[in-house]
């Protein structure tokens, strides 16, 4: 005997009863399909909502907070920066090229639907070890998909990160962040426009096909088990050319003031866009599915309603404006179809062939989904053994070369070389910078963005792992000279129906909350990606933070690498014996236990102040975040970047391997000209940030007294070539 339909569609018995109660009758198949996608974890946030509500979302710079397609931040002079991050992990695990490509397409449409022009993409990615053939296939496919789509729509890909862990072999994580610019007073939000009864709902863009049906419920809200390839038809297929036309047409429609509302079609397709649009307007809608342009004429109502065919948008248009809207879309070669009319009341009445096939309250789909406080239980500590207590008598130079060859640390040039980073002509600093810098067109302002997440820390302590992700993202923005303003996020976790996963999630939310409060960077939105597990084994809890900051003058941008010889090198922040979850412990000691580094958020905040003030006074020749791989890796990267070596001595009494590879938080390697040394020390003292002069730049060698003496070229070799070599490319 097969399960009842609602169970097959991913709804529980309780949820089914609730639908019956809402409708006062049993739902038909079409209605059930609509509820199953809207009440899916992916669309309803039913397991995460009560936790997300505890995040700080207010701040003087926040123009639009959570609940819209994307957050928006005031960047002065009437300009707004819009940004949002999402995951497309499940589709990418099944079909890496299309999964990643359509992830780009989806996040770009979120930005467009705010009325903003997409100006930058970032891609935080996580894979299993590249020593396995399938992981290489996933890695190469995802990178090609991001490039294949992003390069073709004219939005530069300016940053992101790539990390590797065993748990991602079965569950790669593909997160995509998009940033857009708009005039603050022209932002399109659910509240900024006032649709009328009688206004028309116009579907424009691509035709609707049978691809991606049930993507949010079948793929994104369940774990991937054996035979997951069978769900490949639930992966959408992307057409970046259509997306480019959609971007231009949408921005022209907004510029000309032709719309009363705008919504992208993503997860849950027409059902989601229609129910959210009607619910926001506080109205109902009469919907005619016969008007939807179809790729296959015999599609059933539930297929039309839940298809996730890409490159479609929904606009609310006053009847007087319809002809103008049509002419703009036609100029860009796009279909338009009036598929519905807004009506008094609150009901979506959906017809096919003249018959009513569904009749449901819009709000019950969009807003009144179930909310769960799922049980949480702290799991046993992962592995309390502190790697800092392990003896180490190996060669420190060899250890550094090994850490530099770790793909998590090594240069990601192989990846970003495949991305168009220069289109639109505003990329002041791209993926090889701690924070990417995008010029606000026609101004001297630079928006600085960075993304960070560290599953290895999250595994050891999800609270600290999340707080570190916020702090490191803020630091990466601040070393570039910008003040961090706000975050978006993508929260990558296992199955929320397991109490340990739910505990990890709640702890991570607490970490984000405390860090964002301490650093004054509110949360403007984000995305939760659950069910990243298979065979009962979940990924490490990995909240990825997308931080956005502002440089008042992009010409004050601080580079990461030592730009010249003869500069004084300073280490800001203090080094403690903290190897837990470190790259060194993993790569050299083969020990993954312990605790992540401690994090004092008041020191982090003070460090950010020092960096922002020093940058505004133009006294920093360079500044580079010191985190993954510790001081040794930070110094090596500073040297490799522009080819200037250094000679330093270690400022502590710690054993050399700990001083070099500890990943203590809130540290930065900076260089300054002799004339600016006094001022930098003064600024650090004023903010009570520990600071030590550790050496000078210059020469072809990287010399750390009593520890390491190698040429910069020797350091650059594993760092530059580790990833291509793992992929079998001769270099």
């Amino acid at each position: 005997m097969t399960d009842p339909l609602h169970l097959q569609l991913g709804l529980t018995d309780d949820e089914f009863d609730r639908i019956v109660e809402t409708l006062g009758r049993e739902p038909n198949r079409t209605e059930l399909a609509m509820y199953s996608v809207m009440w899916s974890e992916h669309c309803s946030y039913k397991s995460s909502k009560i936790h997300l509500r505890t995040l700080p979302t207010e701040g003087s710079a926040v123009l639009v907070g959570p609940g819209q397609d994307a957050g928006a931040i005031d960047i002065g002079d009437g300009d707004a920066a819009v940004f949002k991050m999402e995951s497309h992990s499940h589709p990418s695990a099944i079909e890496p090229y299309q999964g990643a490509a359509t992830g780009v397409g989806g996040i770009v449409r979120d930005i467009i639907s705010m009325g903003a022009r997409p100006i930058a993409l970032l891609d935080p990615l996580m894979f299993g070890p590249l020593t396995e053939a399938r992981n290489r296939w996933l890695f190469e496919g995802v990178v090609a998909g991001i490039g294949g789509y992003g390069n073709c729509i004219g939005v530069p890909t300016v940053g992101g990160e790539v990390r590797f862990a065993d748990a991602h072999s079965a569950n790669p994580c593909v997160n995509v962040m998009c940033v857009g610019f708009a005039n603050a007073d022209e932002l399109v939000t659910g509240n900024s426009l006032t649709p009328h009864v009688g206004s028309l709902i116009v579907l424009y863009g691509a035709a609707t096909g049978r691809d991606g049906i049930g993507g949010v419920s079948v793929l994104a809200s369940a774990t991937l088990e054996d035979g997951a390839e069978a769900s490949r038809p639930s992966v959408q297929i992307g057409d970046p050319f259509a997306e480019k036309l959609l971007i231009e047409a949408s921005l022209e429609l907004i510029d000309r003031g032709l719309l009363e509302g705008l919504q992208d079609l993503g997860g849950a397709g027409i059902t989601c866009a229609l129910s959210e649009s009607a619910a926001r307007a506080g109205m109902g809608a009469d919907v005619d599915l016969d008007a939807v342009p179809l790729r296959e004429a015999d599609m059933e109502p539930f297929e039309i309603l839940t298809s996730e065919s890409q490159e479609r948008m929904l606009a609310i248009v006053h009847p007087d404006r319809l002809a103008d809207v049509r002419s703009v879309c036609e100029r860009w070669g796009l279909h338009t179809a009036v598929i519905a009319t807004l009506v008094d009341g609150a009901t979506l009445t959906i017809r096919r062939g003249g018959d009513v096939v569904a009749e449901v309250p819009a709000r019950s789909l969009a807003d009144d989904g179930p909310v769960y406080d799922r049980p949480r239980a702290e799991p046993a500590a992962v592995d309390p053994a502190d790697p800092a207590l392990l003896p180490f008598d190996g060669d420190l130079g060899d250890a550094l070369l090994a850490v530099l060859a770790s793909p998590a640390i090594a240069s990601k040039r192989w990846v970003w070389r495949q991305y168009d980073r220069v289109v639109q002509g505003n990329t002041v600093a791209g993926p090889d910078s701690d924070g990417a810098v995008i010029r606000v067109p026609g101004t001297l302002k630079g928006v600085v963005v960075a993304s960070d997440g560290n599953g290895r820390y999250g595994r050891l302590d999800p609270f600290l792992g999340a707080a570190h992700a916020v702090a490191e993202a803020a630091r990466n923005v601040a070393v570039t000279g910008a003040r961090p303003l706000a975050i978006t996020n993508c929260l990558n976790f296992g199955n929320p129906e397991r109490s340990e996963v739910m505990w990890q999630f709640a702890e991570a939310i607490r970490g984000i909350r405390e860090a964002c409060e301490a650093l004054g960077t509110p949360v403007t939105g984000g995305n939760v990606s659950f069910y990243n597990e298979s065979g009962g084994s979940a990924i490490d809890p990995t909240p990825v933070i997308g931080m956005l900051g502002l440089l008042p003058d992009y010409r004050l941008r601080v580079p990461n690498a030592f730009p010249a010889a003869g500069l004084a090198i300073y280490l800001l922040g203090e080094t403690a014996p903290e190897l837990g979850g470190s790259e060194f412990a993993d790569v050299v000691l083969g020990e993954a236990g312990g605790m992540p580094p401690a994090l004092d958020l008041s020191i982090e905040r003070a460090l950010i102040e020092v960096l922002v003030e020093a940058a505004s006074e133009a006294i920093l020749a360079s500044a580079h975040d010191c985190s993954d791989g510790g001081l040794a890796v930070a110094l090596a990267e500073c040297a490799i970047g522009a080819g200037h070596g250094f000679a330093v001595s270690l400022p502590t009494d710690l054993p050399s391997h700990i001083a070099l590879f500890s990943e203590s938080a809130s540290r930065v390697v900076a260089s300054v000209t002799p004339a600016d040394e006094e001022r930098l020390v003064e600024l650090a003292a004023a903010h009570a940030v520990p600071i030590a002069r550790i050496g000078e730049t210059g020469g072809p060698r990287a010399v750390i007294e009593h520890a390491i003496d190698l040429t910069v070229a020797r350091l650059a070799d594993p760092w530059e070539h580790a990833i291509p070599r793992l992929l079998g490319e001769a270099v």
Partner: protein
Amino acid sequence: MTRPRIGVVTFPGSLDDGDARRAIEAMGGDAVALWHTEHDLRGVEAVVLPGGFSYGDYLRAGAIAARAPIMADVAAFAARGAPVVGICNGFQILCEAGLLAGALIRNRSLRFVCEDVWLRVETAQTCLTAGLVPGETIQIPVKHGEGQWVATPEQLARVEDEALVVFRYSAADGILDDAHNPNGATNHIAGIRNDAGNVVGLMPHPEHAVDPDVGPTGGQPLLASLFSAAVAGVTT
């Protein structure tokens, strides 16, 4: 000097059209937006076919755009000796339209490549290089998946014998080697011209190399040459 009027054609899927217009304006020219369906060059003195993925690169890169209505006018404009420059997708369009020799196929790596490259200028006998000296090198970004220039043996012989090669990928000092050829192009060819030198196609993006705040500046002398050619009305 009079401000030259330079037209930039937008096809569906063009991406660097706005960037090309901004670069022209930044260098002191008047940029004029041209639309693919119109038979109207709006009185411009030179035409730029910009980068991007016109028509999604469907069929073959540049194949559909080469048959767009405005291309008949561009061909007639070129036949009169007026300057026409195709950048990246624009180069692909010029080859597909038969205005330049050869074809552009997928990079030898089979991967998209975006990086700053050095170009060795091979001839000053074009609308884009009149102000440069053969042998000098300039730095400009490339970004393409299908930039490997290939040709039949006859075409290649003619292109080389008649000095129709305008740019070759090289090291900063002008040395040619495989390490500095980003797409495996035949004979390191990055750009070529027609016999008269008024039509030039190149894969690198000079419009992304005029503003020192966001990249190299090797595009500046190229646009300056184009402006002179546009104002002169004939090619050198």
